[in-house]
């Protein structure tokens, strides 16, 4: 596998057949094909507000001072491909940015890319980072992503992993939060053979806050590893990790959650939770909380559960006439909604619900009997809640 070919810059037209599944959602699209940034001209709104979106290479040429203003954790070379996003101070974007990292290849391919994102002071942004593969060929991706949140800024960050099951993706993401910066992340690992995520959050400014959510739904021989570490380096910071997963067949998951509280970080509040449902005896989850606390004035908690679907809830539902299979579906979906309910992008939640429903539906060839009514292809219409209340 290590000898596989390294990606070279592809032709843009090769990706013309890609269509994003987030069709209901209006976003500013940023295209990366096989790890290479492709300029898109229709984001003039962003240019007008002095937002910079370019390759790392041209950022090094044209915006060196901005790049160097941050203490970035990953080093760069002049020939680095990858993506640079800079949001100046005092910008609020209501429409989310969407990075589409699409892979299409006819042979096994190795892709390495770097991304740097800087959110200026008092700016507020939502960003959806999608990893997709167009066909079934093997790819091996390594992404290094550095994100800087300057003082009083906020970022809602989504990472959606939806690659084919022959492919692997390793993402090393670093977030640095300055004073009163607010970060909310959603990690959705749904499709992919081997998904590894290393997530490091450094709370470098007082009153900064990180809410880290993860959901992994895996089956067959999928592997998903989440290594989350939060460093409380300043007083009065708050962090909350909530990672949930459902594992079917022989899937494996690992969650390593690290909370570090420095002696300089009194009044820290740090929470960590990892909850798993195993649907088979062969599925394996390995969960490791690790708390390293050097200050006495902190509030920290952690919890991990590995279990099956609630038997009493199953019986309750079946006693109303709901089949065992449907009851399972409803419970699994309910398990996932806790994560989705934290999102502020309503249209995205709708789509994600559909994706999750279809994912839970899994191998079953027909959806006609499914109780999880998706808004698109498979189902008939669901109950319209707005009309009931």
């Amino acid at each position, binding site marked *: 596998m290590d000898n596989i070919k390294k990606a070279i810059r592809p032709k843009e037209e090769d990706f013309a057949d890609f269509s994003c599944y987030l069709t209901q959602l209006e976003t500013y699209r940023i295209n990366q094909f096989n790890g290479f940034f492709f300029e898109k001209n229709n984001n003039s709104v962003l240019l007008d507000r002095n937002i910079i979106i370019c390759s790392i290479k041209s950022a090094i040429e044209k915006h060196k001072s901005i790049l160097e203003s941050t203490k970035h954790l990953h080093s760069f070379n002049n020939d680095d491909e990858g993506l640079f996003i800079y949001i100046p101070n005092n910008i609020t974007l209501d429409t989310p940015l969407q990075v589409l990292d699409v892979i299409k290849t006819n042979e096994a391919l190795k892709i390495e890319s770097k991304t740097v994102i800087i959110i200026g002071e008092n700016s507020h942004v939502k960003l959806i980072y999608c990893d997709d593969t167009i066909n079934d060929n093997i790819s091996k991706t390594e992404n290094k992503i550095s994100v800087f949140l300057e003082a009083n800024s906020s970022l809602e960050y989504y990472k959606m992993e939806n690659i084919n099951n022959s492919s692997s993706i390793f993402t090393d993401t670093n977030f640095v939060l300055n004073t009163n910066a607010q970060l909310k992340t959603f990690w959705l690992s749904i499709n992919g053979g081997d998904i590894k995520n290393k997530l490091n959050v450094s709370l470098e400014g007082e009153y900064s806050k990180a809410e880290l959510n993860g959901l992994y739904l895996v089956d067959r021989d999928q592997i998903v590893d989440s290594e989350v570490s939060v460093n409380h380096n300043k007083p009065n910071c708050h962090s909350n990790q909530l990672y949930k997963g459902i594992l079917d067949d022989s899937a494996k998951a690992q969650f390593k959650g690290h909370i570090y509280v420095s002696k300089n970080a009194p009044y820290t509040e740090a929470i960590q939770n990892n909850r798993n449902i195993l649907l088979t005896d062969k599925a394996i989850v390995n969960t490791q909380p690790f708390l390293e606390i050097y200050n006495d004035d902190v509030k920290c908690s952690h919890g991990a559960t590995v279990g099956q679907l609630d038997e009493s809830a199953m019986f309750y539902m*079946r*006693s*109303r006439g709901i089949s065992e299979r449907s009851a399972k579906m409803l419970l699994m979906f309910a398990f996932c909604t806790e994560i989705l309910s934290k999102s502020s992008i309503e249209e995205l939640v709708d789509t994600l619900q559909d994706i999750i429903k279809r994912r839970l539906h899994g191998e079953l060839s027909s959806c006609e009997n499914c109780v999880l009514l998706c808004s698109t292809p498979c189902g008939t219409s669901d109950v319209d809640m707005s009309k009931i209340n």
Partner: protein
Amino acid sequence: MSLLEIKNLHCSINGKEILKGVDLTINKGEVHAIMGPNGNGKSTLASIIAGRDTFDVTQGEIIYEGKNLFDLSVEERAAEGIFLGFQYPVEIPGVSIANFMKTAINEQRKYKGLDPMSSMEFMKLMEEKKKIVELGTKLASRSVNEGFSGGEKKKNEIFQMAMLNPTLSILDETDSGLDIDALRIVASGVNALRSNESSTLLITHYQRLLEYIIPDFVHVLFEGKIVRTGPKELALELEEKGYEWLR
């Protein structure tokens, strides 16, 4: 033909015998009450009829509308018209009452070979039935039983019963934990659903509920057996004398 016929039912859990030969026959249109001290098998009996498999049935049979109940799965029993009102209704966070009930109704309809109920019909039905138990307007979008008070949970059981329109309703300690107002609402809900075509089995250890829902027969389940059957007045006698005299 009787609706439900329990013949010489024995069951045990972890080797301990709980029911030691229960015989009970319920005809259509009748209301039966089973009374008895805690821990004598009342709830076990209810659970076995509904299909809970945590008990080992060691002897006996249950015939429901001519069918051997043990041949039917939990959900098939429900679709055949058996409803269990739970003593402790289960909280299901993240599953809305609307989705829960719509799924239940449509899966029961599918079992009977009927088309699914339309969303419009369903909403109308919900509006109509929730009035019976005076449940709040936001019911549909609330998660099943999550954050419900004790009274709301029991009202929700009766609401579900009304939605599903069962032939045999088994209400397990529906009165426990209810204040007098909630009890009145729940009881009038049950009474509103009484008909010549359906039957009710009330499980209670207080006579209080039977002042509101008048039973045709009262049975005493004591140490795993029905030791006494009588008219509604039996409940009063039990209230006065306790259960020990039946030993």
